[in-house]
Every structure is written in structure tokens, then in C-alpha cells.
């Protein structure tokens, strides 16, 4: 099979950081080629170079056998390279049609839309995409917005389509539908570069190129390899995935949420009759597509957001008007989903961040002043215990990687909490090793008797870690299931709001 695209020795530096270091890549005509690697391995940089968004410092890119000068996205589009960005680049109050044709010279000065409409309908038919071209983007589901992004690229005549983590925001069903569309495109001779870190998707591709620390480590035929082999290639060593210890049984009740409701700025329901409980030695997973009320649930439990009705009890004590000070004093640990915005003060050092919320506690103070010596001693201890890589305890934490920042948050929350840990997306954006460290620490807390609420978008992780999984959709709990009694399919349907067959709640 001929190569549509070949990249030789591509290097891209950002200041002192080498994001791509002599990368070689070959993409055949009519294949789905996966770029697989951890965060920071250089996947997105490589694709941005291929799309002309960044200029490579050195290296040769050949497209259809000829050297391609990619100085801007316009060059890439002219050659037939299209890109679907991870964060959709759509104008939300334009129609589907307008989003597709804007920037194209084909419609002429006075926007003759009929030809464009015909061409797009044809593309839709060929790919099996069904979409109303006259709806505005904000009316569409996330999945449909993805089709618009794909249509945009195809309308401009893309023969090579680059998809950057296309399924990060999709339910498993929507992701299956995406793959059916991609498969249809492959059969019509289009090539697809798929950037992903989800193994389930990687295994549906034809070939995989594994990137590690900016280098292309290997390219393998997917049919001739296994998920485990790819993962260890990606990390560079064998990964030990933690699972919960089934010999420890949940007992008693730490947190019981009873028909909690919250109302948003426009009077809409953000949380509607949310009820669940968590026992000692139990991790309750919270699955859902981002933006379905997870963040708000955590905020109400922490007393940051007001409940409109309902309440919850903690260790048997009823709480209806929680305040954040009270919840901290009751020993609730909270890991927010946005590390640098809500979890830490980026300009502060490790020592200061470690005592946030407890700066008035007698143990860190001497009279009205902070006791720097005690704070530094604490920082040194925690840096060692949690293996934080930092130059010093005073270095602003904004200079640390996501994984190290998360370790500081965990250290703080574990230090001050007793009994209940609330963790919202604690591994978002972390690489495999850093994620496993977080999970290991959370499992230690479970073993010591903590009740844990763990929200994550990684269903595979929830399935191996949690005692039960609650699925949230539009602020409602669609059901609570045991991992051993459910499937990805069932979870996916509940995440999409379809609970007709699976409405059940296990205690």
C-alpha cells in the first residue's frame, strides 16, 4: 500500500522543551492510524505541525510523495489535510451550514448556499452522517457537533483527517457511532490519524504509532499486538494497575444524601433528587459525561453551593445548610476537578498550599503569625512521602507538572480529613503512572476505613476501583450499579440518559 503521508525526522522545540524529537511517521492511504502516548508525549504537537498550526524546526513532511511546505493551516487545507480539534472550534450561534462554509471561496461573494448544501448533503450520505444543516450549533448534542467538525474538514476536500482525542466528551455509544463513520471514510480511501489514549479505541485502528517523551518509539499493526503490549511500550515499563481489595467489605454508613436538589442561575435544575449513600471501606464511583452536575454535586457537599431542598447526613448527623468551614472542620477531604484554579493557589509554594484552609490552626501558628519552621518541616515530610518532584518547598506550584500538583492536593486533603474523601476527576490530564499513584493513595484510604466519592470519565478505571458506580445525567442519578454486574454498554446508556432498561439502584 502506498504512503499518503510520510514524516521524517521531525523536531519541534518550545524554548528549552523538545516536544517532538526526530519523529518518523508513515500513514498509508485508507487506514486509521492511531497516535498513542501519554500526556506530554508530543501527540498534539505532532498533529499541529502536520496541520500547519505550528512550524516544525526541522524535518521533512511528504504528502502524496511530494515535500509539503506547511506554513499555515491554509497550506494544509490546500493539500488535503484536515483537522478536528479536541476542543471544537465552532461558532455556536451560526448554523451548521454557516460553520462549514465560512472561510471557503466556493460560495462566491454573495453566499450562494444551494451548491454548498448539495455538496454537504452528498458528504453526509457517503459517511452515514445525519444532521440538519439549518440548526444552530448550540442546539446540537456534543456528538452532533463532532460530525460538524468532520464535515468541515471533508468540505474543504480533506484526504487525511486528523482527530485529536475525538471521544473525550462522547458516551461509549456516540464513540461507537464515530468509529462507524470513520470506518466508512476509510473504505472510501480516506486516511485518518487518530490521537487517543483510550485503549478500547486504539485497538479499533489499523496501525498504532507509540510516542514517548517526544519520540516515536514504534509503529505496530494493531491486529498483531495486544493492549498490554501497547501500554507497556507507551510507558516504557510494565504498568501495575491497582484494583480494589475485595476482601475488605464496606460497612456502616458515612454519608447519606437524601433527595438533594440545587437550582442554577436561570432557575433550571442542576441537581434533582440526588440520593445515595457511602459506607466505610467503600468507593462510590460517579460516572457521567462532563457537565451533567458532577461539579455541582461536589460543591453542594462541600457547602460551596446552596441546596434548594433535601439534605445529607454525615455520620448520622443531618445537615441541611452546610458551610464550607463546617465541612472542613468535620474532616471532609476534597479534591476539586480543576487543580490550579480551585485546588491550589498557583503562585504559592508547596508549604503554603499544604496548609490552605488550616492556616488558622494552632499547629501552624505562633501567636498571630504563621510558624514557617513548622510549615517547612511539614512540606519536607510531605514532599518525601508523596514523592513530589520540586526544586524547593517555596517554588510556586504553578511551575510543577499536573501530577506533582495533584500530589500536593492529595497530601493536604489526606492530612486534614477524617472519614470522607470527595474526589472529582482526580486523574484528569495525568499520565498512567501519575494516575496509578493517585489511585493507590485513594485505595489506601479505602483500606483505612474512609468513604470515598470518586468521579471520573474513565469508565475502565471506575470499574476496577469502585464498590458501586452511580451514573449521573442532567443532575439526576440514573441508577447505581455494581461493577461486576454491569457492562460498558449499560453504563453508556445510562450516561446518555436512557435508563429505561436499567433503572435500578443497589445498596
Amino acid at each position: 500500500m502506498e504512503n499518503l503521508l510520510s514524516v521524517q525526522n521531525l523536531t519541534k522545540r518550545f524554548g528549552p522543551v523538545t516536544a517532538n524529537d526526530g519523529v518518523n511517521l508513515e500513514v498509508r492511504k485508507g487506514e486509521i492510524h492511531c497516535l498513542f502516548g501519554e500526556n506530554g508525549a508530543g501527540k498534539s504537537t505532532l498533529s499541529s505541525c502536520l496541520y500547519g498550526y505550528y512550524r516544525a524546526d526541522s524535518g521533512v513532511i511528504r504528502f502524496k510523495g511530494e515535500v509539503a511546505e506547511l506554513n499555515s493551516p491554509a497550506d494544509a487545507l490546500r493539500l488535503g489535510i484536515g483537522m478536528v480539534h479536541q476542543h471544537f472550534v465552532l461558532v455556536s450561534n451560526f448554523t451548521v451550514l454557516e460553520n462549514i462554509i465560512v472561510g471557503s471561496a466556493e460560495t462566491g461573494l454573495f453566499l450562494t448556499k444551494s451548491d454548498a448544501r448539495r455538496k454537504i448533503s452528498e458528504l453526509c450520505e457517503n459517511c452515514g452522517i445525519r444532521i440538519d444543516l439549518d440548526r444552530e450549533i448550540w442546539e446540537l448534542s456534543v456528538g452532533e457537533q463532532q460530525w460538524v467538525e468532520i464535515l468541515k474538514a471533508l468540505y474543504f476536500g480533506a484526504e487525511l483527517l486528523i482527530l485529536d482525542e475525538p471521544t473525550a466528551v462522547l458516551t461509549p455509544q456516540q464513540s461507537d457511532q464515530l468509529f462507524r463513520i470513520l470506518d466508512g471514510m476509510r473504505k472510501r480511501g480516506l486516511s485518518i490519524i487518530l490521537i487517543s489514549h483510550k485503549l478500547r479505541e486504539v485497538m479499533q485502528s489499523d496501525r498504532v504509532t507509540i510516542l514517548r517523551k517526544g519520540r516515536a518509539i514504534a509503529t505496530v499493526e494493531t491486529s498483531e499486538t495486544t493492549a498490554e503490549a501497547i501500554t507497556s511500550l507507551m510507558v516504557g515499563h510494565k504498568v501495575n494497575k491497582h484494583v480494589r481489595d475485595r476482601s475488605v467489605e464496606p460497612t456502616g454508613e458515612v454519608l447519606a444524601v437524601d433527595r438533594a436538589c440545587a437550582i442554577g442561575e436561570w432557575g433550571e435544575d442542576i441537581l434533582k433528587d440526588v440520593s445515595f449513600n457511602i459506607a466505610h471501606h467503600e468507593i462510590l464511583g460517579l460516572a457521567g459525561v462532563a457537565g451533567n452536575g458532577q461539579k455541582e454535586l461536589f460543591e453542594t457537599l462541600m457547602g460551596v453551593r446552596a441546596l434548594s431542598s433535601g439534605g445529607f447526613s454525615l455520620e448520622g448527623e443531618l445537615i441541611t445548610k452546610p458551610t464550607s468551614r463546617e465541612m472542613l472542620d468535620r474532616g471532609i477531604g476534597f479534591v476539586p476537578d480543576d487543580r490550579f484554579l480551585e485546588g491550589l493557589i498557583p503562585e504559592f509554594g508547596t508549604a503554603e498550599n499544604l496548609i490552605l484552609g488550616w492556616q488558622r490552626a494552632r499547629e501552624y501558628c505562633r501567636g498571630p503569625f504563621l510558624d514557617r519552621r513548622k510549615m517547612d518541616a511539614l512540606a519536607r515530610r510531605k514532599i518525601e512521602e508523596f514523592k513530589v518532584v520540586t526544586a524547593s518547598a517555596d517554588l510556586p506550584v504553578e511551575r510543577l507538572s499536573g501530577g506533582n500538583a495533584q500530589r500536593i492536593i492529595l497530601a493536604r486533603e489526606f492530612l486534614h480529613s477524617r472519614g470522607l474523601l470527595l474526589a472529582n476527576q482526580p486523574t484528569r490530564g495525568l499520565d498512567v503512572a501519575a494516575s496509578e499513584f493517585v489511585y493507590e493513595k485513594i485505595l489506601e484510604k479505602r483500606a483505612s476505613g474512609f468513604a470515598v466519592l470518586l468521579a471520573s470519565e474513565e469508565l475502565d478505571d471506575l470499574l476496577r476501583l469502585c464498590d458501586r458506580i452511580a451514573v449521573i445525567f442532567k443532575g439526576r442519578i440514573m441508577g447505581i450499579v455494581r461493577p461486576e454486574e454491569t457492562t460498558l454498554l449499560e453504563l453508556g446508556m445510562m450516561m446518555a440518559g436512557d435508563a429505561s432498561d436499567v433503572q435500578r439502584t443497589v445498596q
Partner: protein
Amino acid sequence: MLELMQGPLLISILAAMVRIATPLLFSAMGELVTQRAGIWNISVEGTMLLGAVVAYVVASTTGSPWLALLVAVFACALISLIMSFVTIVLKAEQFVAGLALNLLASGLTLFWFQTYVIGREPPKFAGFEQVDIPFLSDIPILGPVLFSQRALTYVSFLLPPLVWFFLYRTRYGLEVRCVGENPKALDVKGLGVGRRQCLAIMFGSLMSGLGGAFLMLGYSDRFVPDLIAGRGWLVVVAIIAGNWMPFRIVGAIFIFALLEAVGIHAQVVGVAIPHHVFLVLPYVASLALLAGLRSRTHQPVALGVPYSRE
């Protein structure tokens, strides 16, 4: 108050409304295109003033109002490059840049006025004359209100439909709106965001200059430093009140103009309400409108946000 509703006075009020509205229409349509491209250029007041000053100088030295108009427009287009450089290249805060231009314009004008105008023989120049359109100007009421105006007034009637057509029916209009909503959406298709914003700022600026020059040449025979007297700010308010939609902005401007016209005539007739109440009303009305509008706003999403890749 009732005497204001009588025939001849009513016609006079309506004619004054059209007269007051038309310079604002030029500035507003220009500023609308600028804002639709995502640039919140609040230097309308200063740019109008600059247009008026240049027009005064050229008209009083050459005697040709049309040449004066042309030079004023050109000068304002040129001065817009400062705004473009500061906001697009340096990516500075657009409000601050706009404020600075306003202060610069009023400061320079005062300096020039103190040094070269005060205490000298006021130069004589002919401004724009009234042009009666044959037959149409004889229609009762409508004739004197709409068809006995300056030539540029008739141009200003055509402007809103033209701007609407540009924004909603042409390729470049779609691109301008796209830049205001989500500049990256255009950038990833390989089209320059900065170039479009620069042209939009330039268009807005030259239209503001046209408005200022028209105000000078059409309706005054001598220059005063507060010639613009807040009309540039009124334009910015009209755009918000008109929810960034061309014809609603026209509506807002005519309402503002009507209030001012009524205010002027109330003074003449001797109504007991102070003149200033009518001047304040547009701003009060806009504030009320804004408060009620916040969920259904058509304000461009990326308005005022400098664009850069990552």
C-alpha cells in the same frame, strides 16, 4: 407639553430628529462592523472629534466641503492604524486603548483650539446645503421631514440596509461575524484574523470620521471644542441598546434623536422640564434595556478578547 404635538412644531421636531440621527447613523454602522469583528473600539467620540477638526481646517482653508469630508475620512482611517497596532499586534486591553485615543483626541483638540482658533477672526466657509428632492419634498409632513435634508442624509438612509446585506449576505460579512464569535474557527481554516479585524477597525473609524465631519460641515458654521458633546458615546450605547443588530440600532438612534429633538423644542416653547432630563433619558433607557436583555444578547462572544494562538 401638548403644544409640542401641534402640526408645524411636530414637523420641526421630526425634521430635527432626522438631522440629529444621521451623523450618528454613519458612526454607528461603522462601529457595528468593528464590534462584530470582535473589537470593542470605544474611541468613537474621539474619532468623530478628529473628523470634525480635520474637516473644519480643510474647509476653512480650501473652501470645499467635499474635499474637507474626504480628507477627514482619510485621516480617521489612518489614525485607526494606531488602534489596530495596539489591540491586534500588541494585544492590549481594547477599552484602555479606546479610552487613550479619546483622551488624546480631546486633548489635542483643546490645544489646537486654544492656540489657533480662539481670539482670531472666524473663517468663513460654506458647509453642506439642503437638497430638496423634487416632488417628494412636497409631500405634506413626510416631505419636510425626510426629503428636505442634506445630500449625505440620503446616503445615511441607505447605509443600514447595505451594512446588513454585507454582514448577513456576503462571504466577507460571514467571516467578519465569525471573527467576532470565534476567531479560531477562521484561523484554523487558514484565514487571517488580524487582517480582518484591522480592516473592520479601519471601516469603523472612517465612518466615525465621516459622522464627525458631517456634523461639522452640515450643521455648524463655527467650531466649538465640545461639538461632538457625547454623541460618540451615544453611538456605543445605541449599539448595546440595539443588541448588535443593524436595524434595531437604527431604531435606538432614532429614539435617542427624537428625545433630543423634543428636548430642544421644549426649551424653545418653554416647557417646564429641564432640557437635561431629555439628554439623560437615552442612557437611562439603555441601562434598563441592558438589564432586561442579558439572556438574549447578540453580543459577539469574542468581543473585546484579544486573539492569539494558544
